[in-house]
């Protein structure tokens, strides 16, 4: 069963002067096992959308179907806790949710809440910390004295330790350096491909979307404006511009070269491939 939104709306502060419709009759389907990017401008409703996935926010209208569960606006929701175990949601700047005395305890906090024994929880925590690149020498340190990037890794490990089937990340790489960003994105791709997790990632970084994600969902003004595979989406520079999305630099370079009359073939997705093609062209015409 895929994740599906049927005619979902979410209204904040309904019935007051501050009423605000963050989601407006959204219909959406997300395939399991894919890595999907949710893009859109600030205030477009991305964060509201992803918070429906683990029922932190409930729809004011419509129905959300997720992992064999149905969350309907008109019915009182059940099994919320087990849903939250199955859908791991990593918030923006998750390092602010760390609170335990040691890194290991904090990472094991999630699995323990979902009924794991202490030993099992710590085992899972260690696995998750290893995945995010936090070595055993950090296990007994206080999470509050780590660096910003390390805190982020520990916080994400805290969600991974819950072993969710669906992983939702709200701008997980905001504020990280390029190397940190790349290693994070590689990790999410690995989780998606090797452990077959469905990954949903809210981001502004089109380079990362182009490189790592299968699908792109464009959110605009609380509505789904576009949904397509990322390879197809970025192929069309006009469509990107229309959606208010700056295409990745590689695509822009290819576009520019075509304007100058070079017959750059479609389907070049990495800098290396483009460099190889250029080298070949130079040799052929040399």
């Amino acid at each position, binding site marked *: 069963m895929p994740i599906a939104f049927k005619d979902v709306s979410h209204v904040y502060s309904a019935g007051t002067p501050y009423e605000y419709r963050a989601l407006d009759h959204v219909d959406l389907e997300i395939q399991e096992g894919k890595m999907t990017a949710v893009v859109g401008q600030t205030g477009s409703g991305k964060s509201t959308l992803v*918070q429906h996935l683990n029922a932190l926010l409930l729809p004011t209208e419509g129905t959300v179907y997720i992992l064999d569960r149905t969350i309907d606006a008109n019915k009182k929701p059940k099994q919320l806790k087990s849903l939250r175990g199955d859908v791991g949601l990593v918030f923006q700047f998750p390092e602010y949710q760390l609170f335990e005395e040691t890194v290991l305890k904090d990472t094991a*906090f*999630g699995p323990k809440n979902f009924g794991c024994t202490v030993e099992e929880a710590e085992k899972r925590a260690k696995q998750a910390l290893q995945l995010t690149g936090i070595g055993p020498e950090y296990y007994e340190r206080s999470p509050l004295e780590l660096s910003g990037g390390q805190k982020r890794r520990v916080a994400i490990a805290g969600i991974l330790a819950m072993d969710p089937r669906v992983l939702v990340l709200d701008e997980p790489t905001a504020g990280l350096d390029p190397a940190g960003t790349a290693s994070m994105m590689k990790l999410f791709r690995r989780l998606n491909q090797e452990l077959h997790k469905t990954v949903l990632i809210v981001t502004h970084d089109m380079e990362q979307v182009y490189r790592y994600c299968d699908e792109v969902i464009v959110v605009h003004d609380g509505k789904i404006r576009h949904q397509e595979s990322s390879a197809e989406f970025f192929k069309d520079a006009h469509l990107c511009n229309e959606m208010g999305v700056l295409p990745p630099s590689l695509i822009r370079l290819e576009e520019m070269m075509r304007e100058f009359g070079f017959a750059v073939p479609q389907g070049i997705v990495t800098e290396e491939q483009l460099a190889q093609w250029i080298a070949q062209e130079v040799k052929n015409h040399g």
Partner: protein
Amino acid sequence: MGSIALGRYIPLDSVVHKMDPRAKIMAMLIVLIAVFFPSGWIGYAVLFAAASLMILLSKLSVGFIWRAMRPMLIMLVFLLVINALVVHTGPVLFSIGSFSVYLDAVLQTLYIAVRLLLMIMITTCLTATTKPLDMTLGIEDLLKPFEKIHVPAHEIAMLISIALRFIPDLIDETQRIMKAQESRGVDLQEGKLKEKIQAILSLIVPLFVSAFQRAEDLANAMEARGYMPGEPRTRYKVLKMAGRDYILLACALITAVGIGVLAWAV
């Protein structure tokens, strides 16, 4: 969060909103003192009329005053029960078995209820019509004379305005952390006592960490812009008393003196 009425600023366009905060604070203090004179029902009627007039002038709705008053009702009911048990003077109103309720018990409760209502009406006239920042400016100016006896007027005002400024931020932050911990399986509503303590801890520790972080950032930002406590500063907004402010003060004084005379005569 939208339901709290007591102490909240309501942006409206009225004469009272335009008045000088210093005049409003002083007038409020004077009339509040008058509420505590034992002036009897006539005095309270006069004060009620005065407060009603102010509310009318400030264009606030009766519903708003009622919402500000509502949280006090439970306290009043509690008070009525205690008075009914303790006060045994005056004629008996009614009896249930061997237990009787006396008239004075009800009257005394009513007395306190009226005073409470008056106090809420009067303070609301100030808080609902004065922006928090203007209020702190007013407090700072009113505390100025006390600097001679080493009351740090400016620092107190700065503390208050910083505290006010961070309330909405901290509410947002709390909600954010709550959501993040709920995503990790924390259940804030249900669970055993031990789980509940753990849940609250998972909320308070990050909240404190971020509050301290914010405080430090703010301190650095203020210092970077050359802020020095105790140094003389100029102000962007300079308060100025106008004719209507003096009229307000005069009215407040006359009311208070009148009530005082009435209380003395009774």
